[in-house]
């Protein structure tokens, strides 16, 4: 057997091999996704890259148009954006509905006092039936596109800017169609803000963008996040204050990484008395799901790799079959061999396209969900921290009561007063802690329900598309071999 050689690089003069993008290479996809009930499915075109839908998260099939050589990778982001955020005390609105949670300004974000509340905000579920049933409120109609990457500036300060286009009929937006220019750190900034606001109360914020378009689409699908003013500002306003602290490799970024590590250690030491079996069950479930998805993902990656090898080997064989056909001095056999070479060349193309589909539909779907589940786990962690805080408050309250008792015995009236004040203070904190904990638990339950429903639809849609791609490959194979058969029979 000949020694294994490196298969020739795929695609001479074809679009970039999608596995080998360098850092700093910003390739982009222009996609448009609609959340309406549109039954359109991607039109396969002759260019291999355009066959494939890069959008793997829409509950309905999305129109996808891919530019040549473009791929959606934010390679310049060299750090992982942490999903954890510095603890903040939320000020709950007086409304019973948990739809909006205004947040106190902090040093990190541009100050914004959120005092307005939406009139009768209702949480829109993904199912069509419910949308139709909805008495008041908009049909969930919002389309986001990200396009036109453009290099701005020179040298060290250069960056890529993207055009974010929004089309919507939702009343919360001032216009129905608008676009703005954003850079990558803006996306990270948006994520950071949303995460800091919502994660610790239990909302599953989509993970930080590696795929910006997917990130935005997931974010707008989330009924609560959609209504966030930061998101609106991100989509709408022409000037956005620089999210300084999300700059790649910034000092703050490193700090975040350290925090994340510390949190990880913390997580291990929080021993929570889980009174609710649902949470324990769900956590276990997500843990298992995570493991299995990772395994599957690794196997699918191997599949992609081998299919690419098959494509390369088929191309090489096609060439040698053609050469053999040239040498062959029996005319009919020579012709048949040339035809065989042509068939094999076409088949090599087929394998390449299939490998593409393997990757973009199957593999990416899995990696998306692995990241989402990480976000889910993060939310569960926040709940634990919340519980910890409540616990701590209770312990402190106990101590304060002891102090009061001691002071009473020792008969120090001013200290007694102080102790009584502190007791009141901590009683309030305990109450708050309990409320918070209950709130986050409730929210998580709802979020997980929503996530589950979406997951089912998502998976099914993409898997069906993927299987259809497999069918298409087989049908092409049939076509090619049916065309070849008479040539073989013609050998006299």
């Amino acid at each position: 057997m000949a020694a294994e050689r490196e298969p020739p690089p795929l695609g001479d003069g074809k679009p970039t091999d999608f596995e080998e993008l360098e850092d700093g290479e910003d390739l982009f996809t222009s996609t448009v996704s609609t959340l309406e009930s549109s039954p359109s499915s991607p039109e396969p075109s002759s260019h291999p890259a355009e066959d494939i839908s890069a959008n793997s998260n829409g509950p309905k099939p999305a129109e996808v148009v891919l530019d040549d050589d473009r791929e959606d990778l934010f390679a310049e982001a060299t750090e992982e954006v942490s999903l954890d955020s510095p603890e903040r005390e939320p000020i709950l609105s007086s409304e019973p509905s948990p739809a909006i949670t205004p947040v106190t300004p902090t040093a990190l974000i541009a100050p914004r006092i959120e005092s307005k509340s939406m009139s009768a905000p209702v949480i829109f579920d993904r199912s069509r039936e419910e949308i139709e049933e909805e008495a008041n409120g908009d049909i969930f109609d919002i389309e986001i596109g990200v396009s036109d990457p453009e290099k701005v500036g020179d040298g060290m300060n250069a960056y890529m800017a993207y055009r974010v286009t929004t089309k919507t009929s939702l009343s919360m937006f001032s216009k129905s169609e608008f676009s703005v220019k954003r850079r990558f750190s803006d996306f990270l900034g948006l994520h950071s803000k949303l995460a800091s606001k919502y994660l610790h109360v239990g909302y599953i914020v989509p993970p930080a963008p590696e795929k910006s378009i997917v990130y935005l689409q997931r974010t707008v699908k989330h009924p609560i996040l959609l209504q966030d003013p930061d998101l609106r500002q991100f989509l709408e306003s022409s000037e956005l204050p620089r999210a300084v602290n999300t700059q790649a490799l910034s000092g703050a970024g490193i700090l975040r990484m350290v925090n994340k590590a510390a949190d990880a250690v913390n997580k291990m030491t929080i021993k929570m008395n889980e009174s609710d079996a649902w949470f324990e069950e769900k956590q276990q479930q997500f843990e298992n799901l995570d493991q299995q998805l990772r395994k599957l993902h690794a196997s699918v990656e191997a599949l992609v790799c081998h299919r690419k090898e098959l494509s390369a080997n088929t191309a090489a064989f096609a060439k040698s079959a053609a050469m053999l056909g040239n040498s062959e001095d029996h005319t009919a056999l020579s012709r048949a061999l040339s035809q065989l070479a042509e068939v094999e060349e076409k088949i090599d193309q087929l394998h390449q396209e299939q490998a593409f589909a393997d990757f973009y539909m199957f593999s990416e779907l899995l990696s998306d969900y692995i990241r989402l589940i990480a976000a889910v786990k993060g939310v569960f962690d926040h709940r634990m921290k919340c519980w910890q805080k409540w616990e701590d408050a209770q312990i402190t309250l106990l101590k304060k009561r002891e102090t009061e008792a001691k002071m009473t015995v020792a008969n120090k009236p001013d200290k007694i007063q102080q102790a009584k004040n502190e007791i009141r203070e901590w009683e309030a904190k305990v109450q708050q802690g309990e409320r918070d904990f209950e709130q986050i638990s409730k929210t998580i339950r709802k979020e997980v329900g929503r996530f589950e429903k979406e997951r089912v639809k998502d998976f099914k849609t993409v898997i069906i598309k993927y299987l259809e791609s497999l069918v298409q490959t087989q049908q092409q194979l049939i076509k090619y071999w049916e065309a070849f058969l008479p040539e073989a029979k013609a050998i006299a």
Partner: protein
Amino acid sequence: MEEHQEAGKEITPSSMLVDLQGDSSLQVEISDAVSERDKVKFTVQTKSCLPHFAQTEFSVVRQHEEFIWLHDAYVENEEYAGLIIPPAPPRPDFEASREKLQKLGEGDSSITREEFAKMKQELEAEYLAIFKKTVAMHEVFLQRLAAHPTLRRDHNFFVFLEYGQDLSVRGKNRKELLGGFLKNIVKSADEALITGMSGLKEVDDFFEHERTFLLEYHTRIRDACLRADRVMRSHKCLADDYIPISAALSSLGTQEVNQLKTSFLKLAELFERLRKLEGRVASDEDLKLSDMLRYYMRDSQAAKDLLYRRLRALADYENANKALDRARTRNREVWPAESHQQLCCQRFERLSDSAKQELMDFKSRRVSSFRKNLIELAELELKHAKASTLLLRNTLVALRGEP
């Protein structure tokens, strides 16, 4: 590991390679084969009404080395210099397969029991396929000899078929090595002859054409064979990839509590079936394409060898002519020179005539074999593609049909 090959009346790979006209006066086949530690024992069965043989039906056990001995005996026999000697069967080589089985046995704890069982099954099937192929190669070698009007009458052939004891050809290691070394030197000299570097002038257009044709053809078919092998192996890899995918989907399916459960389980089953189909594509490509290319690579080498021998005879003839001229000029020993020249001439002409016939047979054999295999390849590819389509469509219907 012991493997027995049943006396297969099914279409054996050997019949794919060479269309042999059934001549009932001498029928040879390998009716059984056993694979032991490091050797394979073939049971060669002969049915013949030829008067030479003591019985009409008999069999002997032979090992690979004895086949090689027989082949070499033909090659070294001057009488057959003008014939294409059927290429010797390759040595049975289970090394790679055995290594893989061993590695699997050493264990990778991350794979499930089902995965392990499937992988083992795959490797065992591979081992069996290699085994069947080596039997076929040895069989077709004998069958070509039996079908050839001249070669079948060789005394060594009869001995090989009939002699009950060991042919004792195995202890020859040093001599074989030396012989091999010398053969290579002769080979390079032949290459010089055949590539025209030695300045020998070809007198016959037919042979001139054949020479250029065979040189190029042999190189290219060797290339095509190697690359076809790689394609086949990639298909095999792909099929193997489906094993862990199916297993992971199966686990996901059992874990899930929602509607995805049935979807995952159906997908797991789909990938398992796709695996089997992909495996069949791989093995069909192997048999119909790779093996055929490999066989004709060897056969074209045998044809080249024939051309070497003829050119050597031509060289001898030319030298004899020169010697005769010298003798005539000196008027000394003219008659021996004349008779030597006569012999060389006759030999050369005999070789040329027989070689011509052999080369034309080679062509028709090759064309018919390619035709048969390419047709069957296309038909099998179609069959598998259609089966895959059906399978995928059914799964899609099932997936869509669910709520």
